[in-house]
């Protein structure tokens, strides 16, 4: 796809209040460009987020959006998607939102194979609350709440979502915007639950996992012949973290989405169907007769 597209179509009128250099700018720019490039319209797109620095994301776009309460972006996105499956639903948030308070919903959104995209701006720290450890903080990391270093193992978002049945699992890096955009484009195109863990450095509170720290370690899966249809290989790559950190699409498969299997959504768009019994030609008597 080399055609021209309006790179500013999804750009909002409100200026982001993220710190200069924040990794979240990378995802914002890659996402808004990808949405426009693929032909989506702002008024037919809903961007849903939770709470945290990164969750202000929808405000910086021109789309519809829901800035939810902490951890509940995915349930809200589920309601949007199933009520009006014609809308493009993109869900975003941070690691506290998605891997901490809201991690339960991540598992269920994945196993339901909702046809939505979920991107977590993973900075391995709590930024908005000024520097506490996060569920994805590296072991040993000294933070406000771990003066002797984090003594818990971090969550592994890739093996977690693979295990939960996600049909598209990827990792991007906001220090490589072009590559990130290609992953987002593939995620938006994917039919089913597409998940991207986006390494998104916090320049203010995480002095450990910096842009340079990542640049020394990341590599691209597609350059090393990874087979994205092989779930065992995907699990292997999901477990890789340390000297080498894989970027790209770990896994992808086609499986029926919830909107395809739901008895109602498969046949109609609930938001466009009329209200009431007579408008829907529902025979009242047959409903009432069951009670006799």
């Amino acid at each position, binding site marked *: 796809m080399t055609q021209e597209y309006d790179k500013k179509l999804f750009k909002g009128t*409100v200026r982001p*209040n993220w710190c200069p250099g924040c990794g979240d700018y990378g995802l914002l720019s890659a996402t808004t460009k990808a949405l426009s490039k693929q032909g989506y319209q*702002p*008024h*037919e*797109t*809903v961007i*849903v987020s939770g709470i945290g620095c990164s969750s*202000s994301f*929808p*405000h910086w776009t*021109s*789309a*519809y*959006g*829901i*800035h*939810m*309460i902490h*951890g*509940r972006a995915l*349930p*809200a*996105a*589920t*309601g*949007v*998607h*199933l*009520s*009006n499956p*014609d*809308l493009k639903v993109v869900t975003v948030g941070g690691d506290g939102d998605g891997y901490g308070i809201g991690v*339960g*919903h991540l*598992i*269920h959104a994945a196993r339901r194979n909702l046809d939505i995209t979920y991107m977590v701006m993973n900075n391995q720290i709590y930024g908005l609350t000024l520097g506490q450890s996060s569920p994805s903080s590296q072991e040993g990391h000294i933070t406000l709440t771990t003066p002797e270093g984090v003594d818990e193992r971090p969550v592994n978002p890739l093996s977690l979502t693979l295990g939960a049945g996600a049909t598209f699992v990827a990792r991007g890096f906001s220090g490589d915007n072009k590559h990130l955009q290609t992953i987002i484009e593939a995620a938006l195109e994917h039919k089913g639950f597409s998940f991207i863990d986006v390494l998104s450095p916090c320049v203010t509170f995480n002095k450990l996992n910096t842009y340079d720290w990542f640049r020394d370690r990341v590599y691209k899966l597609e350059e090393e012949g990874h087979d994205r249809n092989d779930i065992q290989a995907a699990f292997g790559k999901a477990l890789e973290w340390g000297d080498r950190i894989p970027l790209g699409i770990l896994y992808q498969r086609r499986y029926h989405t919830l909107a395809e299997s*739901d*008895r*109602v*959504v498969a*046949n*109609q768009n*609930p*938001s466009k*169907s*009329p*209200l*009431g*019994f*007579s408008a*829907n030609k*529902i025979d*009242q*008597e047959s*409903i*009432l007769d069951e*009670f*006799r």
Partner: protein
Amino acid sequence: MSTKNLQLFNRFSMRWGGFAGDGLQSTGLLLQKYFNKLGYYVHGSPGTQSTIRGGHVWQHVEINTTPFSSFDRPLDLLVALNSETIDVHGRDMRPTGVILYNADNVSSSDLSTYIEKGIMAIGLELTQMARKVDLQTSVLANTVAVGAVLALLDLPKSPYTEVLKKRFTNRETIIKLNIDALELGFNSIKEDQVKWSLAEPAQPAENYLVISGNEMIALGAAASGLKFLAQYPITPASSILTYLSNHAAKLGVVVRQAEDELAAINMIIGASYTGVRAMTASSGPGLSLMSEGFGYASMTETPLVVVNAMRGGPSTGVPTKMEQADLDSMIHLSHGESPRLILAPRSIPEAFDITVRAFNLADRFQIPVIILSDFALSESTQNLPPFDMDVEIDRGKIWSKPTDEFPEFKRFQSTADSIAPRAFPGTPDAQYILVGAEHDEESHSLSGNRCGLPESWDIREKMIERRYKKFELLRQELQGPNLYGKSDAKLTLLCWGSTEGAVKELVDEFISMGNSVNMLSFADLYPLPSEKIRPYLTNIKTSVMIEVNFNGQFEELLHNELNWRADHQIHPLTGETPTASSLKKALSKLNLEEIQ
């Protein structure tokens, strides 16, 4: 069948007791449908425990030749499938009553105290008889007992066969086994045991439906155009989920069993944002989990309908029993000051109407609405006439394109009534971000770089005033209490929600005894329509407030808003649904001169 003089009943009360898993609720429902078919008026009330097998459950079925408002405790017939039934329910027997017991599980020595009082005991080997019909199907013992009960009441079998055939459509073997069991039970009653007969209803219930409170809520929602239900199972709200799951395709409702109540309420917020009517239902523990999402809906002016079928609290409390103790927590659900509407249906028929109103008011005032039901209302059944389900649907203000009044879209534009139109995703030129942070007219958040700046001070005050202005307008739309009886009665019984039926019956009884008693019952609880209530209160001579909680929560609300208190209180807290008899007993302890 018999030619001798039979004792004639206009109202007949029976209770079935046994182990959980004996299928009593299902037999109770079939029996109610049977009596419904014969034109009687019926009420049913289940007694359940949090047990799947074992434990003790019961099902109360009451039959009347005229319409009535509630079941009552005293029993004409107790069907005891086990001996615990006699220990638990024997005390509710009328002296003229009969205990029909399963002689395979109950020994006659268990019954000696009742036989001494003159109560008749009939033992049938129900289990063995059922085994004669089929070795595998143990619940056939219930059908054997049904046969015996019909014989005792001098009633025909064939309408029960019809009810069975409808219940087990296309399952010929099960139908046949049940008919055999029914026959066996019917024939086991000797002619000299038949002493009863039910009077014919003067105006038979024709074509009536046997339906529960939760089913009425589900139908009310579907008739109102519900498109999305997300719910997590919990007693006593689960039957809403079950009913709508089973009718999802036919009714066009997306039904999703959420992973928890947090997901449930936040899913319906997302659904409502797209413009569909959305609902969730739960009980106290689930509502506690929903509180943050509920506050978000209030803050973002997102219409929602949330059913709370109350059970005993706090915490796990008494999960399968009735209580009205969540009123305070529903008024204050979530932090900060967030307007909401609370409606408490007073009867099974009203559960439908209130649900329809809930959806319309939610849309018109862009506010979350709580339908405050309880175990008794949600899980009880009664028969009622068929009704029209084509209801008036009012979606409130919606923006789809520029108009003279709203040339451009601002989600929270200031208007005379503080209600601005909603626009739904898909509408061009109306994009906005729903946000739980305080926001301006365009729904831009004030929590970031604008927080604390002078411009935000004004917006903050304006937005709070805005949300409470529409709350006051809503208050004016709400309805005052139902007055039952004469307005100048010497004694007024006050109640709210599901206890209305029992209180009505009590008022009838007192009036028939020559007392001057009336009732005020409330459904529109919050915001309290104070000015519509005041004239009723000033008219009261002596008052008794009946509510099923310890602290008198509704009375406190009346006190706060109208500076009014009742003279006496009854707070029945055993967990058992109040009935006319149990309330009469509680009233008699007050030694009121008005009802001597």
